C-alpha cells in the first residue's frame, strides 16, 4: 500500500488511510498524491509549514472537501461512499476549535451528542473530567480561554467514542502549559485507549515530542515519512562534532573525508575549537587516525543527533518553517 505504511514499525491495525489524495484549486495543486496510513494506538504527525497543504488534506480526510483524485478509507470504508458510517469512527477538530459561543460547554456537547447514536450524552461527565472542564461546563463558551476551548473541542471530538482522532494544529495559540496538557492528553488517548491520533502541526518540536510517526508535507507533497526516530537518524548519522586543537589544522585534515567547518564562536585563544563535520560513518575511524597522525589533539568526538528541524530543513531544502 502506501509508503508510510511500509516504513512503519507500528503493529496496530490501520484505521485511516489516505490513498493518493490530490486536490487542485484552479491550476494550483494544493495537495498532490499524498498517501499515508494511521494505525490504532499511534500518534501520527503531519508536519509542514503554513500553506503546505495540511488543512486541505485534513478537509479531505473528514469529508469537508472532495479529493480530485485518490480516496480516504476509514476502517476500510470509503469515505465518499459510506460517509455516515465512516464518520461514525472519526472525531475531529478542523482548524480552530470553533464551537457555539453563545451556548454553554454542556449545551455544545449535548448539541453534538444529538448528532451521534444514542448514548453519547452519557459520556459528557466523564469526558468533562478527562479534559478538566467539569467546573466550567455550565459557563458560556464565550467566557472560555483558548486552551479551554481547545479542550472542549477535544471532548466534543471524543463524544462518539472514535477510533481515530484528527486534530488540526492543536497547539496553535496555546501557552506552553496548555501545549503540554494537550500533548499528555493525546499520548494518553493513544497509549491507554488505543485510539489512532492524527495531529497536524507546523511546530517541529511539538511533533517530535508527541508523535510516533511523522509525514512531512511541503508544497502539497509528502517529502518524507516514517517513524520519528528513523527520520532523525537519517540525517543524524553523518553529523559529528569534535573538540580539537588546533582546530584550523584539524579542519584541513578532515576536509578530504567530508564537509567540515569550525563552529566559529567556540574557537579559543590557544587554537582549540569545536568543529562540525559531516563524515560518512564508515570513514570516521580513518579520519580520527589522520588527525592523531597530523599532530592534532582530539578532546572529544560526538555524533550529534539532528532534531526534526534539521530533517525538515534537509528535506524541504532550507525553506523556513
Amino acid at each position, binding site marked *: 500500500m502506501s509508503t508510510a505504511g511500509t516504513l512503519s514499525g507500528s503493529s496496530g491495525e490501520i484505521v485511516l488511510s489516505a490513498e493518493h489524495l490530490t486536490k487542485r484549486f484552479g491550476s494550483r495543486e494544493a495537495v498532490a498524491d499524498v498517501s499515508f496510513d494511521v494505525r490504532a494506538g499511534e500518534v501520527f504527525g503531519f508536519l509542514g509549514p503554513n500553506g503546505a497543504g495540511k488543512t486541505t488534506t485534513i478537509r479531505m480526510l473528514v469529508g*469537508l472537501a472532495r479529493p480530485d483524485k485518490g480516496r480516504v478509507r476509514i476502517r476500510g470504508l470509503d469515505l465518499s461512499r459510506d*460517509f455516515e458510517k465512516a464518520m461514525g469512527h472519526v472525531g475531529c477538530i478542523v482548524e480552530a476549535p*470553533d464551537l457555539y459561543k*453563545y451556548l454553554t460547554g454542556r449545551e455544545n456537547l449535548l*448539541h*453534538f451528542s*444529538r448528532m451521534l447514536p444514542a448514548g453519547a450524552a452519557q459520556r459528557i461527565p466523564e469526558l468533562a473530567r478527562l479534559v478538566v472542564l467539569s467546573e466550567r461546563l455550565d459557563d458560556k463558551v464565550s467566557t472560555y480561554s483558548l486552551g479551554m476551548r481547545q479542550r472542549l473541542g477535544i471532548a466534543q471530538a471524543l463524544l462518539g467514542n472514535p477510533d481515530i482522532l484528527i486534530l488540526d494544529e492543536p497547539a496553535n495559540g496555546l501557552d506552553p502549559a496548555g501545549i503540554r496538557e494537550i500533548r499528555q492528553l493525546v499520548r494518553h488517548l493513544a497509549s491507554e485507549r488505543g485510539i489512532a491520533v492524527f495531529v497536524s502541526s507546523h511546530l517541529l518540536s511539538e511533533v517530535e515530542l508527541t508523535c510516533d510517526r511523522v509525514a512531512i508535507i511541503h508544497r502539497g507533497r509528502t517529502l518524507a515519512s516514517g517513524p520519528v526516530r528513523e527520520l532523525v537518524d537519517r540525517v543524524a548519522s553523518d553529523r559529528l562534532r569534535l573538540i580539537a586543537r588546533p582546530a584550523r589544522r584539524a579542519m584541513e585534515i578532515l576536509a578530504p573525508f567530508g564537509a567540515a567547518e569550525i563552529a566559529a564562536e567556540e574557537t579559543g585563544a590557544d587554537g582549540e575549537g569545536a568543529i562540525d563535520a559531516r563524515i560518512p560513518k564508515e570513514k570516521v575511524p580513518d579520519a580520527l587516525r589522520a588527525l592523531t597522525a597530523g599532530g592534532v589533539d582530539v578532546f572529544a568526538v560526538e555524533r550529534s543527533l539532528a532534531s526534526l528541524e534539521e530533517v525538515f530543513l534537509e528535506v524541504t531544502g532550507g525553506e523556513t518553517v
Partner: protein
Amino acid sequence: MRFPGLVENEILKFARQRRFRVVVLILVALIGLIVFAQSRGRQRFLGGKDWHVETQERMARIQNGLRDGRMPETMQRWARFELDRLQYHLGRDVNPDAISGPLFVRGFANAASYLLLPLLAIVFASDVVSAEFAQGTIKLLLTRPVGRARVLASKLVAVLLAITLTVLFGGVVAYLFGGIAYGYGGWEAPVLTGFRSAGERLDPAAVRSIALWKDTVLAYGLAWFAALSVGALALLTSVLLRSTAAAMGTMLAALIAGTILPRLAPSWETQKYLFVTNLPLPDYYSGTPAPIPGLTVGFAAATLAAWAVAALATAFFVFVKRDVLA
C-alpha cells in the same frame, strides 16, 4: 432516527440567539402602534356618521375623480373597481369599513403579507446556514456521522417552524391589541370576498359572502404560504452567499424592488413571473384589482410554489456538493 434531535439542535440555536426575542418585540411593538394610530384616525374620520351615507359620499368622490379625466390609467382601473366593490357592499347591506377585533386581525394578514412577514422570514432563514460558516461551526456540523442533506433538512424544518410560529404569533397579537381597541367579538360576521376584475370591471359572479373566521383562516394560510416560500428563497441565498449580511441584503433588495416595480412599470407583464410580485397572496384572494393582468390567487400561489421548490432543490444540491473551505 436522529432527525428530531437535529431539529431540536436548530431550534435551540434559534432560541438562544437574540433574533427570536427581537422578532417577538418587533411584532408586538408594530401591531400595537398600528392599532393605536388606526383607532385614533378612525374616530376623526367617521365622526359618528351612518356608514351608508359615508360610503355613498366616498363613491361620489371617486366618480368625480374619474370624470375629471386627469387620473392616470392604472388609477382609473382601480377607481372603477373600487366603485363596483362599494356598490356591491351597499347592495348586500354589508359595511365595507366595519371594524372589530377580528376584522383587524383579518386586515393584518393582508397588510403583513407583502413586507412584514417576508421580512421576518428573511430574518430567520437568511443566516441559518451562513451563520455556521461565519462561526466556523460548519466544520463541526458537517463532520458528524450525519449526511449533509439531513443537516440542511433539519435547518429547513426549523426555519419553517419558526416562520409558522411567527405568523401565528402575529395573528394572536393582532387579535389581542385589536380586541382592546375594537372589541373581541364578531367572528361570525359575513364578509364579501373574491372581488375579481373581469376585463375592465368587477366580476360579480366571483363574489362570495363567507363567515369572517373562515375568511381569516384562509388569509393567514395564504400569508403563511407566502412567508414559507420567502423562507425557502432566503435559505438558498444563505447557502449560496455564506454571509448573513449579504444574504439579508439580497433578499431585502428583492423584496423592496418587488413592492416598487408594479407601481413604476405596471405595463411590463413578465414581472408576474417574478417571485416578489406574487407575495401579497391574501390581497389577490380577497380581491383588489390585480396590479398586472392575469395575477390571480391561484397563479400567484403556483408561481411562489415553483420558486420555492426550485430554490430548495438548488440549495440542497449546492450544500451537499460544495467543498467547505471556510
